[in-house]
């Protein structure tokens, strides 16, 4: 058991955990941020996607010790009020169905748009194919990414 300082969404948390505990479970159960989800535990489905220093990572496959003293962003941290262009776009196209995979989808999409503000369909395939959606919302997600991209690059509100 060890003590870890975690910086999540610009807030400091101190948690007690075994060093090999996946960061996913520490975020969900010790910190109490349950927006990040468990889907497979082997980095195959993307439901656990968070940002580590701005880059998308699979928190199910990262031990808590590797997350200490880094900047972690979870789905709860991308806005206070659903005002992030990606969230707005998701709602505009009504992307989620059951919604369980959508935290991970959004985190991957945000990272993509930070990297490539006007992604092509191939860019989207590349960045998003690591996120499984069993409800099959892929086309709406794709559409939402294009919508968010337009809003961000046009500077329109």
């Amino acid at each position, binding site marked *: 058991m060890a003590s870890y300082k975690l910086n999540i969404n610009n807030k400091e948390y101190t948690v007690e955990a*075994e060093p090999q505990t996946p960061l996913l479970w520490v975020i969900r159960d010790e910190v109490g941020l*349950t927006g990040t989800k468990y889907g497979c535990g*082997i980095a*195959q489905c993307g439901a656990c996607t968070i940002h580590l220093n701005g880059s998308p990572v699979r928190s199910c496959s990262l031990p808590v010790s590797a997350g200490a003293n880094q900047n972690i962003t979870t789905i709860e941290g991308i806005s206070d009020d659903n005002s992030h262009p990606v969230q707005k776009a998701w709602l505009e196209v*009504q992307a989620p169905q059951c919604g*369980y995979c*959508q935290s991970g989808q959004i985190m991957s999409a945000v990272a993509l748009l930070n990297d490539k503000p006007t992604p092509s369909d191939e860019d989207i395939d590349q960045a998003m194919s690591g*996120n499984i959606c069993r*409800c*099959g919302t892929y086309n709406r997600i794709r559409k939402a990414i294009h919508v968010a991209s337009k809003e961000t690059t046009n500077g329109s509100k």
Partner: protein
Amino acid sequence: MSPQKKLPMEASKLDRRKFLKVTGLAGAMLAVGFDTLALGSGNSTLKKLMPEDLIKGTQLNPFVTINAQGQITIMAHVPELGQGISQGIPAIIAEELGVSMNQVTIVKASASRQYGRQSIGGSRSVRSLFTPMRQLGASTRSVLVQAASNKWGIDPSKCEVKEGVVYRKGTSDSLTYGDLVANASKLELPKSPSLMDKNDFKIIGKATHRPDLSGKVNGSADYGIDAQTEGLLYATIERCPTLQGAVKSYDETAAKSVKGVVEVMKVTRTVYGKKNTGIAVIAETYYAATEGRKKLNVKWDNVEFSKISTESLDKDMLKLANEEGLKHFEKGDFEANKVKMLTQDGSEFLATNYYLPHVSHTCMEPMNATVHVREDNTVEVWAPSQSPQVQRNFARQLGIPDNEAEDKIKVHLPYLGGGFGRRSMNDSLEECFEISKTLRKPIKLIWSREDDTTQGPFRQSSVHRMSAAFNSAKEPTGLQHKVVSQAITTQGRASNGRVPFEVMEAINTHYDIENLSVRFSEYKSQIPIHWWRSVFGSTNAFPHESFIDEIAIVGKKDPLQFRKERLKSEPRFIKVLEKLEKESKWNQKLGENEGKGVAIVESFGSIVAHAVFLKKENGQVTIPRVVSVVDCGIYVNPDQVKAQTEGNIIFGLTAALKDAITFKDGAAQQANFDTYRMLRMNEAPKDIQVHLIENNEAPGGVGEPGLPPIAPALGNAVFNLSGKRIRILPFDLQSI
């Protein structure tokens, strides 16, 4: 259900702001978040706080509460698993109630018989609730209007309602629902209120944004797996690879040596009468529980269940395909016609087998449940279930009389991260309840993805013997579809000579073929099966609609035209085919490396047809476009019908193109997404267009009907592109 007698209810005096997690403006979803339930000590009654307890206002019936300010709360009583029903049912009520969705706050209900049936499945929520919920809304409007007309001393016919306000016709007098609710609550709800004219619908039929999506884009939506409460312990269960089997030995000491492990115990779940026993490890963290589980070293006594394999199952089913089987549908005399055709010059007889494997439900949220059985025998349950009314079941296990069950046992309805039928079985609740009843602590049981994929129950596997007789003009004179598979409802007991109702879904006997025969042979196996999205529609439609194409091609007919000819007595089918022909530009000539396929299926009360387009380019086969037409009668939210259909297409393509669940030595061989693969974004058709038929027919199902036709439409497109006939699923699209 008939409107309940009014129960004036003052909601709890608790401070609403303190306990509610508001996710948006009026009209948004209020879900009692789990953090509200973590307040207080183990003895605190705050822990039994249910969403219904927090609603302020006057309750006119279990679904509708209005406060003096005119704010309207409508309970969403059907569990939300992504189909949008948490908005759909309240929308029906709101329509007849005479309010706009902006005036309504939807609150997720808890499990309670006051709402009538809350189980979901079979694409039947809107189908079965459309009229009863309209009646509920109308009767509630009726007492509000009566209260106004009483106040004014006039006949109700001199009043009209608009957006929660009653107007006295021809004057400027008006009273809001807020003004009226106290008096309205004293009146008896009429049993047969007059319903609106469908032409006047303002909400039903419109694409309205779902309020629950607000929480689903920011991590705040509460799923079963997100339950949090003080003192929560986590459990994981080491399970027998063959599901059935006895525990021979296990190393409890080794498991308990892991820091944080609190207890190790045997747990049993019942699956269609069969006991599946495992060893649970309970710990202070989920990680500690899984580490403890790794050390258990369970030895199983399961030799008798280790004998079957996919090969042995398939062999057994093929044998049954040769038998006569039970009659389901016989028009004319297929056998006599067959004999006649075989002796005629120029006639033809075609017989072939189709095969589909077992597959898994694979909800993105793995099976889980959180249950707290307290020392005083009160219980609180947070479980993503399609059949949430578990109170009586648990009450009987605790010696609590039925009439106290709902008082003592509280069941929350979190969001479901997918259901697809799997969550209509409450086996994970059963396990969790057993652990909590033993330890008297709150327990969160999580199935790993591996548990979820390998432990079933599964979708049935099936063999289909398809045969057709043709005359010398190459026209079909006889068609027979013989289904061989397990049945769901007869598991755990002997066949009784009757065809179980569920096994004949989606077999279209309207085709104008003189001799039409549908038969069934039941297969019994140790593999447990359960309702899977579209159930037998997911296995029957593939052979049926593929074989219809085979028949059309014998006569060199265009498959879509063939269907129009042979279904011309069925106007709803024809309208769907004609619209599909138009929207998909079916008659446009395709390029050398392109193919197209069509299928049309009626299931769960709706008719859906897909046209699938394939393209071969740079050595890769892709599915660039799918065009769909849906006739589901009257629909509540057209955008949700489209969303469900898009989802059904992806779900069905996954089953057709990705991995099967295969068995070796009695155990499933696929455990996680590396070997049991899902269709990904880059493989999904980039262009999916869904068109809805407009008519005034009674609402049909929406959650499942889009699935059965996709695999045969795909298979028919493969034949069109390559000349290769797919009769076994799954198949590799790149190998055609």
